[in-house]
């Protein structure tokens, strides 16, 4: 048996697969992609599934083993299961609603300006210029408004389901989410961790 391994990134993990495992994985992903045809969240769902497969393969590796073979992959795929077509198709009718959010990717501070720009469908540069001008004119008030928006606006989910990359570290986001939970009755009964 050939032991030629290729390193691939699967979801947000990196792992080594032998040739037969790669062939099998590609077939699964192609089929999943087909079943999610027309689903606006296709890339995100695929990334989530890849991550689930990667996690399950890694769990199955023996302590000294570094290469995933068709054996581990097959077991992982049968646990993850085929994409359910009925559910996948049902998601196609709902168009995303315009939401005012802070967008971490490409943000200068927290992505409030980016979020406003997307909401108003204008270039972020204009929103930033207005923000800077307002800050210069009003001083503290604009800073306060920005801080307030940072606290109140939800974080935009990431394109293709990748984690936030903004300048605000995850710890601060958690702190913001925690503070915010006091304002939201919906999460009152949710645990803070």
């Amino acid at each position, binding site marked *: 048996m050939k032991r030629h391994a290729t390193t691939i990134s699967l979801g*947000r993990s990196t792992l080594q697969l032998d040739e037969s495992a790669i062939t099998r994985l590609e077939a699964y992903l192609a089929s999943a992609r087909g079943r999610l045809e027309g689903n606006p969240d296709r890339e995100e769902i695929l990334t989530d599934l890849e991550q689930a497969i990667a*996690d399950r393969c890694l769990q199955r590796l023996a302590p000294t083993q570094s290469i995933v073979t068709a054996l581990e992959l097959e077991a992982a795929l049968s646990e993850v299961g085929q994409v359910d077509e009925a559910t996948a198709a049902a998601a196609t009718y*709902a168009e995303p609603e315009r939401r005012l959010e802070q967008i971490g990717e490409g943000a200068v501070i927290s992505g409030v300006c980016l979020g406003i720009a997307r909401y108003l469908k204008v270039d972020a540069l204009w929103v930033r210029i207005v923000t800077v001008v307002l800050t210069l004119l009003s001083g503290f008030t604009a800073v306060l408004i920005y801080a307030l928006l940072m606290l109140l606006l939800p974080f935009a989910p990431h394109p293709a389901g990748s984690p936030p990359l903004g300048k605000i570290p995850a710890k601060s986001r958690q702190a913001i989410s925690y503070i915010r939970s006091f304002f939201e009755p*919906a999460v009152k*009964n*949710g645990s803070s961790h």
Partner: protein
Amino acid sequence: MTADSKLTPLRKGLLEFVVLKIVGGGHVYVPDILRRLAETEFSTQEGTLYPLLSKLRREQLVDYEWRESESGPPRKYYRLTAAGLEQLTALDDYWLRINRTLANLGHNQSGHASP
């Protein structure tokens, strides 16, 4: 076997309700949901759950946030939105009504006159 094949679509239809219920219990990530469901009649897989959660998120019933994990990449934690909580309450009420209806129908069948 025949009884079970009749129950399959019923379980499928209820899966959304069941998932809302689990997400309503606090911040959960997908392996948590799968583990909770594995012990029940609603046992399911990522292949079904991820498309379902993405649909629920588009309907603004659930939302997620990223959290760091001690091992491996960050994870998505799901929670109910205000609309999701409302929907869950409505489904809970409806489910109770259906149960009552079923119980009452049983009474009628066994010869009791309806009040």
